[in-house]
């Protein structure tokens, strides 16, 4: 026999001003199955909850309905209340008589009548509720970080410092990412390598961190707490355990004409190389496209000279499979391709460069040893023009519709550093808007203008062309309403940034959603900014949206906090509102598995008694409750109705429909 209790909340005057709460409570007393009905000013308050607990005990309630604010607000509160009074928390239903009633209606009679129907509907549903127990699944105490840039490094260090094992999978031969390529960092102008490389070393030396460089994620199975990941370890043709990083191979390699991608292709490197001096791991890698031995079978010089015997031309890709409890995605960014922006002459003029190329030209470890020389003739540029928003804020289809966020600040940095080091250089910056929100950011930009005399021109460049050996930068100066042409020696383009393209594959493997610009989507833009909607997957750095180093590091640490919180648990409570198949009705047709986004449904052959001593073997669906997220897609796909959803069963929803429609 059902014994339902009804609790109508006034929510101060929020509900009581438009809904006759006392009348609602009174009417409910005569509803079949209801043995107790009361109203109270604030049901969610300590006293209100006490009232509920008492009623549950005194009246032996088997289920309760709270007529109050949205379940999205206080469902969890009242479930805990019920549990404290010994009632299964899933025997609670909320009738939303605030957001869906009192707040949107003005007429008291109308609102009261609707509130009565809503409470009745909740009663109809709760009568069909069944006690549910949240399941448990174990947590593998190891995290995977995809991407070894500053985001991945910071997340890995924080997680490892908390005592959990972390693997960093990095597709390049070294960790470090984009930050390793930078010269100085804003707004403090400290040297990028000086603050990054110690962290790289920390990673390498941390006993809890395993760096899997030159590796990529191939396959992901499982779910939060229990991911199983297959990782491809690409052949680097050098035994990582033997190479000492002595660089003799680099000296002896006869094939030295490969473009140095670390230096943005501004100079060359040997086929066998260590990407840069502070690379971690400090181990060589052979570019198979460039290596004479791998291409023709003849050469083998590096092998001859390698004292450690680390060179192995026969090496093949290998695969490892590991289990993880949580995954951090930190795949980073790249500048966009500028083929669609030929008006700036990037492809035709060596002295039109991107900002990232300028970083290398100004870096002491770069191709010019930190002396700013223009690529065409090695001369000092006397007039340098920066162009902002190259491909950013572009909705024409050529570029990206978003603001790349970092360009205003790094351009101010570049302008300032150039004026500081070469005071005789003239620096112009074409901008649409200068965007510098952030601590000490606007002050930084103003210093460029006020202290260093950088010429900021509000306007955009229409054309860059070469005339008599000079780069003519023709653009508008909107403040003076004129068109100007600046004779420049070097033009620097602030190319828009976009997510590293490999993120698409990673997103697919993780079933993490991705937006139209290929940025990974966070679970909630404001309240859950580092979590992917896929449980157990966290987002750090530019893969989630454009951001600078301080923001990236904050986000990485936030990810780490989330991961630590997850890994600290031995078991995870799972949502008990999951799909449940009735095997006696299941056709085993696989339609439900086809629509399951989580792979929660598998099939097995089971023996069924047919009567008369006969049995038959049938293929039936099984739902893994730890994997099922409870969307219900399978329930509608099932023609026999064998699949149902706990907490939102067909019968429950139909009873709600009936309660609402019956006048």
């Amino acid at each position, binding site marked *: 026999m059902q014994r339902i209790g009804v609790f109508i909340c006034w929510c101060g005057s929020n509900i009581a001003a438009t809904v006759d709460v006392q009348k609602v409570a009174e009417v409910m007393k005569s509803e079949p199955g209801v043995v107790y009905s009361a109203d109270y000013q604030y049901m969610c308050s300590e006293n209100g909850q006490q009232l509920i607990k008492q009623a549950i005990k005194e009246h032996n309630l088997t289920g309760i309905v709270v007529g109050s604010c949205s379940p999205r607000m206080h469902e969890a509160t009242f479930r805990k209340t019920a549990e404290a009074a010994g009632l299964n928390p899933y025997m609670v239903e909320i009738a939303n008589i605030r957001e869906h009633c009192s707040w949107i209606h003005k007429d008291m009679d109308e609102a009261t009548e609707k509130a009565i129907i809503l409470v009745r509907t909740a009663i109809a549903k709760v009568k069909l509720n069944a006690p549910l127990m949240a399941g448990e699944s174990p947590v593998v105490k190891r995290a995977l970080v995809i991407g070894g840039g500053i985001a991945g490094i910071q997340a890995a260090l924080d997680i490892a410092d908390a005592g959990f094992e972390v693997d960093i999978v990095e597709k390049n031969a070294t960790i470090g990412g984009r930050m390793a390529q930078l010269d100085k960092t804003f707004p403090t102008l400290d040297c990028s390598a000086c603050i990054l490389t110690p962290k790289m070393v920390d990673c390498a030396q941390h006993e809890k961190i395993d760096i899997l460089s030159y590796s990529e994620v191939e396959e992901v199975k499982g779910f939060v707490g229990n991911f199983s990941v297959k990782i491809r370890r690409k052949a680097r043709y050098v035994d990582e355990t033997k190479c000492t990083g002595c660089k003799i191979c680099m000296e002896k390699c006869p094939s030295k004409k490969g473009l140095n991608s670390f230096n943005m292709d501004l100079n060359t490197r040997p086929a066998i190389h260590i990407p840069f001096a502070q690379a971690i791991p400090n181990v060589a890698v052979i570019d198979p496209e460039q290596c004479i031995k791998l291409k023709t079978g003849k050469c083998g010089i590096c092998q001859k000279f390698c004292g450690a015997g680390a060179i192995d031309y026969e090496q093949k890709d290998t695969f490892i499979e590991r289990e993880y409890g949580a995954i951090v995605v930190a795949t980073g960014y790249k500048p966009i391709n500028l083929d669609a922006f030929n008006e700036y002459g990037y492809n035709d003029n060596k002295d039109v460069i991107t900002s990232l190329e300028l970083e290398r030209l100004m870096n002491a470890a770069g191709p010019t040893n930190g002396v700013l020389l223009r690529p065409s003739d090695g001369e000092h540029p006397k007039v340098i023009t920066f162009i902002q928003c190259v491909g950013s804020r572009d909705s024409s289809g050529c570029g990206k519709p978003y603001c790349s966020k970092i360009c205003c600040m790094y351009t101010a940095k570049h302008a300032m550093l150039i004026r500081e080091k070469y005071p005789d250089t003239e620096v112009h910056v074409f901008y649409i808007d200068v965007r510098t929100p952030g601590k000490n950011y606007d002050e930084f930009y103003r210093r460029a203008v006020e202290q260093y005399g950088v010429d900021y021109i509000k306007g955009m460049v229409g054309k860059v062309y070469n005339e008599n050996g000079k780069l003519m930068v023709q653009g508008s100066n909107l403040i003076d309403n004129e068109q100007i042409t600046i004779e420049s020696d070097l033009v620097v383009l602030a190319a828009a940034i976009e997510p590293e393209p490999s993120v698409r594959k990673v997103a697919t493997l993780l079933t993490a959603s991705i937006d139209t610009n290929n940025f990974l989507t966070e679970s909630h833009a404001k309240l859950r900014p580092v979590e992917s909607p896929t449980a157990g997957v966290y987002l750090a750095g530019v893969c989630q949206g454009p951001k600078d180093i301080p923001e990236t590091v904050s986000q990485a640490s936030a990810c780490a906090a989330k991961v630590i919180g997850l890994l600290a648990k031995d078991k995870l409570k799972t949502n008990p509102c999951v799909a449940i198949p009735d095997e*006696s*009705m*299941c*056709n*085993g*047709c*696989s*339609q439900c598995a*086809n*629509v399951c986004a989580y792979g929660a449904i598998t*099939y097995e052959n089971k023996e069924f008694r047919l009567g008369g001593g006969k049995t*038959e*073997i*049938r*293929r039936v669906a099984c739902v893994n409750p730890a994997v099922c997220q409870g969307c219900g897609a399978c329930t509608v*796909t099932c*023609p*026999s*109705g*064998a699949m149902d959803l706990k907490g939102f069963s*067909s*019968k429950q929803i*139909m009873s709600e429909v009936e309660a609402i429609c019956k006048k």
Partner: protein
Amino acid sequence: MKDVEMKMKERAKQLLESGEVARVVGWKKGDFCYDPSPATFETVEELDNFVYDYFCGANLSKYLIQISKKEGKTAVFLKPCDTYSFNQLVKEHRINRENVYVIAVECMAKFDIEKIKEKGVSQITGVEVKDKDVKVSSLYGETTLYKPEILLTKCETCQKTHQVKDEEIILHERPERDVDRFAEVKKLEAMTEDERFAFWKEQLSKCIRCNACRNVCPACSCVKCVFDNPASGVAAKANDSEFEEKLFHVIRAFHVAGRCTDCGECSRVCPQHIPLHLLNRKFIKDIDGLYGEFQAGEEAEGKTPLTSYTEGDAEPNDVLNGEAK
């Protein structure tokens, strides 16, 4: 057609004698020349009653759900349209494909005895076909009928070809047919809402809820049907109201949407002559138009239109307002 039957019988005999198969599923003679019925033959002797003629319209694939679970291999004769249902059931793991040996047989279209009777010919004893002329002999003499007029509805627009075969028995070339199978659906679509409502009200009011359509339908093969399950909230043995007439057919059509191979068995067996295939064909037409041509049962693997999607699918409101691209 006789030559085909001979060949089939001969092959069935070989298969049974050699022990290659434990049974053969085909058609056996009925009380009259026009009512052969599906049957299982386990011995050579039983094959005496084997028949294959213009009245063997029944789709044998659904029987294989149970039969293919039995020990030993089963040989089955499948007409082109039957193979789609067969494939669909294999896709849904209902037929154990390894246990079945499919012999594809030619069809040449089947006759609807009701349509022959409507022409005023009764007590018929046999038919003979020459091109488009059908010589029908009956106790009262001979009449010549025009073949396209007496075909089963499902055969009128059939363009199907065998999708599965382990071997084939095909002796004649099939006549070309070029009729739009959606013509009737389009006609209904062109009507006003009121006219359509009146049309279906009249048709469905005839439904006696005998469940023949459900029982014959290869897609309607649930272990337990929702309409038999008291827990489903829609169970009913009879139509108690106009609403329930609709409910049954809407839900049935929705459940088979994307899985229905348009085998037309529902309309063939309906004792009330409700054009049930027009319900399923509406779904098929919408699916083809909105999500690209799809023929259930063409493949024995893969997803159906209702268990797949594309990001740019048409919006339901646009579909309703005829604005979907």
